[in-house]
């Protein structure tokens, strides 16, 4: 538990006042219509934000506006609506560039989501750069989406997949990581923030160490992009993957950032329309970045409307969001630990917005069922991280994952509900 000390020291009252002055949660909540509904007769307490976030009115209105004013295919027609839709779609790419501080707009590839972004890199980078006997490194805390594509690649190319273990607190074993890196390492693929434990990995160090042996790094930022300001140039990361729906945007759009030099050196992913420059039966030449990797009609609605989620986050400021969420995390953690028999899973020094826990002798599923009856949405199970659950020798956890619209009052409701579940189940 020693790593938890930071999380258990509450913010000084003045510090907290300053946080709340910079972040007006009541105003934010008014923008999210779903937060006023009830579940099982109780006010909804939505704490499954790691799975997906709710959408603000601005995004919902944009979706309606798209279908009532803009609907048309992009990058094709010369007619007016197609021009409007294409412009709106490309605005998202233009805004994503400064959002993560990419060097070029064409380094932003729009995908279906994090999973597709990672699969794209595993497939295309793999074809170009991974050969028999090469080595890839992932960690023991990866989501299945950042395990399986690399396993498949290794099987196809006869490469070796190494796994960096985690300690009891759920932190990466950096010593082992260092020892695994060598000149045969062709890719390091790691998560920025663990979806199951909340651990924030030392990504800058991870990247620097990988680059020292010439290996590129892919960061799975699905659980980071909505909580932490990311600067891909400052991190010097080679690939970054994230999803729109976990950052208050629509489902069905995600992002792959890749350094231009890698993207240019990689073959296309899927083939068909849009990704071509010229097609003859003898030879096809490929389109330029980013379109080379965007075959077929994209999810236009989601692509366009992601802009409004980016605007929303940018206006509030990710640093303000992060300090507000950190206060909530500290508060909820200290309150939950007062419950007898409650054990946290994931006690890293650096954590973000995820509280995974177990009640001694109780299956997480049972806790989830009782919390649901009390109007609280949490996730129970292995969180698509079965190897990590095996590492801790548990079937899964109960996971409360925080977003910017959650409140201390909701944390109190959660704590009271867990107490009630404990009384019923123990």
């Amino acid at each position: 538990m020693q790593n938890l000390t930071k999380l258990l020291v509450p913010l000084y009252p003045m510090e907290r006042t300053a946080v709340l002055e910079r972040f007006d949660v009541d105003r934010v909540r008014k923008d999210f219509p779903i937060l006023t509904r009830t579940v099982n007769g109780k006010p909804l307490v939505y704490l499954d934000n790691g799975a997906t976030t709710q959408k603000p009115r601005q995004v919902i209105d944009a979706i309606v506006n798209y279908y009532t004013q803009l609907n048309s295919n992009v990058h094709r027609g010369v007619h007016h609506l197609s021009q409007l839709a294409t412009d709106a779609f490309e605005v998202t790419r233009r805004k994503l560039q400064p959002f993560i501080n990419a060097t070029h707009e064409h380094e932003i590839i729009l995908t279906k989501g994090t999973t597709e972004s990672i699969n794209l890199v595993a497939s295309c980078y793999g074809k170009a750069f991974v050969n028999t006997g090469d080595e890839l490194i992932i960690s023991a805390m990866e989501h299945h989406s950042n395990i399986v594509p690399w396993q498949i690649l290794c099987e196809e190319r006869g490469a070796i997949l190494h796994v960096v273990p985690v300690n009891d607190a759920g932190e990466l074993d950096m010593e082992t990581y260092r020892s695994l890196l060598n000149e045969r390492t062709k890719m390091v693929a790691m998560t920025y923030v663990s979806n199951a434990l909340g651990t924030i990995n030392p990504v800058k160090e991870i990247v620097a160490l990988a680059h020292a042996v010439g290996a590129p790094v892919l960061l799975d930022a699905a659980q980071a992009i909505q909580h932490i300001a990311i600067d891909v140039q400052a991190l010097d990361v080679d690939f970054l993957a994230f999803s729109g729906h976990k950052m208050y945007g629509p489902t069905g759009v995600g992002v792959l950032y890749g350094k231009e030099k890698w993207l240019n050196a990689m073959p296309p992913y899927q083939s068909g329309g849009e990704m071509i420059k010229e097609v003859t039966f003898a030879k096809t030449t490929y389109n330029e970045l980013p379109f080379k990797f965007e075959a077929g009609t994209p999810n236009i609605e989601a692509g366009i409307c992601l802009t409004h989620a980016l605007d929303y986050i940018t206006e509030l400021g990710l640093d303000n969001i992060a300090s507000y969420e950190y206060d909530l995390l500290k508060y909820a953690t200290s309150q939950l630990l007062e419950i007898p028999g409650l054990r946290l899973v994931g006690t890293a020094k650096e954590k973000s917005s995820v509280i995974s826990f177990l009640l001694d002798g109780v299956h997480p599923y049972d806790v989830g069922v009782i919390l649901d009856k009390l109007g609280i949405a949490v996730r129970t199970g292995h969180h698509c991280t079965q190897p990590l659950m095996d590492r801790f020798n548990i079937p899964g956890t109960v996971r409360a994952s925080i977003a910017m619209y959650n409140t201390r009052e909701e944390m109190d409701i959660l704590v009271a509900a867990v107490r009630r579940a404990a009384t019923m189940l123990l």
Partner: protein
Amino acid sequence: MTINEIQDELIDDFAFFEDWMAKYEYLIQLGKELPLIEDSYKKDEYLIKGCQSKVWLHADYQNGKVIFTADSDAIITKGLVGLMIKVLSEHTPEEIASSELYFIDQIGLKEHLSPTRANGLLSMVKQMKLYAVALTVKN
């Protein structure tokens, strides 16, 4: 009692519970009290994999009737498993195969049979019927 008579009796029993808490407390109690399966049957070959909670199911065929025993690692699931066994165990394969389980819906626990609940219960019911169908064909 026939399968439907047992179902009707359970529906009557559950009508006495005033709220969801009482219902779940009953299920939890049922889960805690029932030693549902011998340890020798808690092996992978008897495991019905739900996404989250595990259910082990074993069927015996004695004197023309199917005897089900089962267990789960989650207590609420175990309570629900107990209900299923109360209803379906000790009936002929034909009765089980042709049974229609309406009680879960009527006692307000329908959500637990939804495929998205991932508790293994739906698979268990399917498996119970499959055993029965297999035995019917064999007979």
